[in-house]
Structure formats: structure tokens, C-alpha cells
């Protein structure tokens, strides 16, 4: 974790490190963190990445779906679970194999848009692609990020 920045470490919760720049803003948009203390560092100097974003979420360990969302928005981010001011678990986020309910299908004729049912996707890597479980529409990285629900 970058020690040279003026961010108070959290006691319990989640620290998200090594986010691509711009990802923190998107994560704030897609995760519902309104009831939590969140500290965000954007365009922070990083030896590994040049510039990066970091986030500290006090009192909240993220769910699998939330981690999948972050994985799609900022692949390669590191998740640190903090308990009693110690890192209890550290993991690098890879792409999930499938996601459900975190983004919309871009096909306006898809059943998920016609009947408002949660969209499910199979995720393929290199290059990142999401295939709709229902209508088989394929979405590239830009479409994935822009279709992640912001509500």
C-alpha cells in the first residue's frame, strides 16, 4: 500500500489497490457505498503502474458480485481485507467466469431488457468479452464498462 499518501489507514474493511486510473470513479458509480466511509486516491504515484487509483472502504467487506464488478472495471486490482488494522487476506482480482445482475445487455431486443430480468454473462478473457446468456450478444471491454449498471 502506498505509504507516502495522506490517507488514514482503515481498521476494518476493504482496501482496493492497483486500480487503473479512472477505475475508482467508476467503482463509486457502480457500487452502493453511500452508508460507508470511503477514502479515494486518484492518479496516485505508483512504482509498479506509474499512476494508479486506490480506495479504502471502512467497515465493509465486499461481496462476490461486487468483487466481480471491480474485476471487470479494473482488472489486476489488489483486494486487501483488513481486520483489526491488519491485512487478513490479499488477492489479485482476475476476470470472473460469469457475472449476473451487475450489467445490462446492450442488445435492445434482448429478453433481459424486454422483461427486466437480471442479465447474465459468460466472461471470456484476452480480449475481454462478455456473452449474454440469453441472446448471445457479445460485448467488448468498452461496452462492458459502459453497461455496468449505475443505479
Amino acid at each position, binding site marked *: 500500500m502506498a505509504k507516502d499518501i495522506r490517507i488514514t489507514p482503515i481498521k476494518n474493511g476493504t482496501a482496493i489497490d492497483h486500480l487503473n486510473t479512472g477505475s475508482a470513479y467508476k467503482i463509486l458509480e457502480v457500487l452502493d457505498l453511500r452508508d460507508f466511509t470511503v477514502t479515494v486516491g486518484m492518479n496516485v504515484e505508483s512504482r509498479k503502474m506509474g499512476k494508479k487509483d486506490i480506495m479504502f472502504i471502512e467497515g465493509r467487506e465486499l461481496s462476490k458480485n461486487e468483487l466481480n464488478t471491480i474485476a471487470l472495471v479494473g482488472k489486476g486490482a489488489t483486494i486487501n481485507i483488513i481486520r483489526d488494522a491488519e491485512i487478513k487476506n490479499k488477492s489479485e482480482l482476475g476476470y470472473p467466469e460469469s457475472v449476473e445482475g451487475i450489467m445490462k445487455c446492450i442488445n435492445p431486443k434482448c429478453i433481459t431488457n*424486454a422483461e427486466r*430480468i437480471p442479465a447474465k454473462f459468460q466472461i471470456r478473457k484476452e480480449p475481454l468479452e462478455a456473452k449474454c*446468456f440469453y441472446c*448471445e450478444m457479445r460485448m467488448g471491454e468498452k461496452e462492458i464498462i459502459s453497461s455496468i449498471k449505475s443505479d
Partner: protein
Amino acid sequence: MKSAEKQNARKNTDFTDVISILDFTRPMIERVLGRAQQLENMPRPQKAKILENKVVASLFFEPSTRTRLSFETAAQNLGARIIGFSDANVTSTSKGETLSDTIHIIENYADIIVMRHFIEGAAKRAAEISKVPIVNAGDGANQHPTQTMLDLYTIRKEFGKIDGIKIALAGDLKYGRTVHSLMYALSQFDNVTVYLISPESLAMPRHIIEETRKKLKIFETANIEKYIKECDVLYATRIQKERFPDEVEYQKVRNAYVITPQIVAKGKPSLRIMPPLPRVNELSQALDGTPAALYFKQAANGIPVREALLSMLADAKKGTGG
């Protein structure tokens, strides 16, 4: 016969719905084609006992002639009773009923549901929630798996095999769902060569080429005559005017992919023409009745293939639905 027939069906059934050709492996496809051949040769009275006392629902939310009639004929040939509609305007859908609700109601009336819907993914959704098997008879521009099955059956019947076949797919390869599904299905077989013939603006989507390239030998051209000498099958699709941003572009290519006797004469004597009907202008009527014209036989093959699928689904065990 009844119990033997049922046992046979059970043994051969390893799918509980027919939604997308992507769900079918080669052994599954071969079992369907084998079953179709068996049914084609089965005496009618014997066949009529397979779905005796079963009800097949034929739900066509979108108009169709050949697909609906061939499904309904197939179901009747197997002895099933048919319920359904061919116009969603006469149903509660027009009052705003969701597909999920429609399926939850019909699943209590029927043993198998055949459906065509203009919404893409509708059949997949129906399969997810229905306690009875769903057969996708077309979901918008997405999938039409039984068309692909009958295309494969036609090739196998005509040439005795699918392995090693050389097939040209011509015309609108960008939007045509039948050619997309056929590419995926052919990639399950060995040594298949595919010639993709289209104007650049209607080329086969790259992702389909990339996904099938490992198994298929693929050649691309805009010239319909370039590989005609090599082909066993010429699968011609219609170029639709509405796919073009302007009239000039359409006029440039509209006649470039019309299959005429002159083009066919440049191919091998064994060349066969297989467009998914209905035809508009992509195929000269002068070819009707010639040995190359496989299209009416192709349409007729829809019956045994759909009989096969319905009979294999008759004893499919699904979960309780959702």
C-alpha cells in the same frame, strides 16, 4: 413397441431443451440426425404412437409458415395433439402479459413447447423457467437451431457424410443467423472447408471466424465463381435491401450473388444448391427441377428432423422450472 420406443428415446436423450446450436456437441447432433433417419423410414402407424396422449404447444409470437407447419406436421405425425397460436395479437401478450407468465401457464397444458419469438433470448428464458422442454423455433435474429439441424441432415443425406464436405456460404453472411449457426455446427465435424462469399459490408462476423478457425478450413472472397469448382454445396442466402445504408450500395451487389444455371454449370456435376427458403431473388427459378436443386428436399427434411427432436424430448426429465 411403446415401452421399447420410450426406452430408446430415453437412451438417446441428453438434452432437455433445444435452444441454441451452440449447446449441441457432435455426438448429440449425430444422435438427432440418426433418429431423424430412423423416423423417416418408420411406418406411419408405428410413428403415430411415439407422442400418443401428449400435447405439443406451438407458440408463434411471430409469423412463420414453413417452420410452424413443419413442426405441427411433425407433432401430428408422432400422434401428439397440438394447441397454440400463430399470431401473438390474439393472446394475452397483446394485453402486456410477460413471456414468463405465458410459459408458466402453458407448461401446465402441454408436454413440450415449441416457440418462435421476436425477442432475442426468449427461448432461453422460457427454458430456464419451464418445467417442460422448450424448442426454439427462432428467437429474433439470434438462433434457429432446428434449421441448422435440417441443413446438416440434408448434407448428410445427400453426400452420406458431413466430414470432409466443401461448402460455400454466399450472400448476406453478416446478418444471416442460419449461416452463423451452420458455421458453428460444421466446426464440430472433421476436414470441413468453408468458402465465405460476400460483399465486404456483409462479411461473416470476425468472432465467428476466429472461433471456428481451429476446426474449419476457411477461405473468404467476394467473387462467387472463385471457388465454385471446389464446392460440394452452395448455400445461398438472400441479400436484403434494408441491410444497406443507401440504395446505391445495394444496387452494386444485389445481383452479384444470384445463383443462375450459368454459375452452377461452372461447378462440379455433383454441386448442390441449398438456400434456406423463402427465396426472393437469390436463386434463379430455372434451377428448379435440376439435380443441383436441393432446396425443396431440404425443406421436406424439416419434418423428420423436427420429429426426431420432439420424440427425443418426449421423455426428457427437466427440473421443476423457476
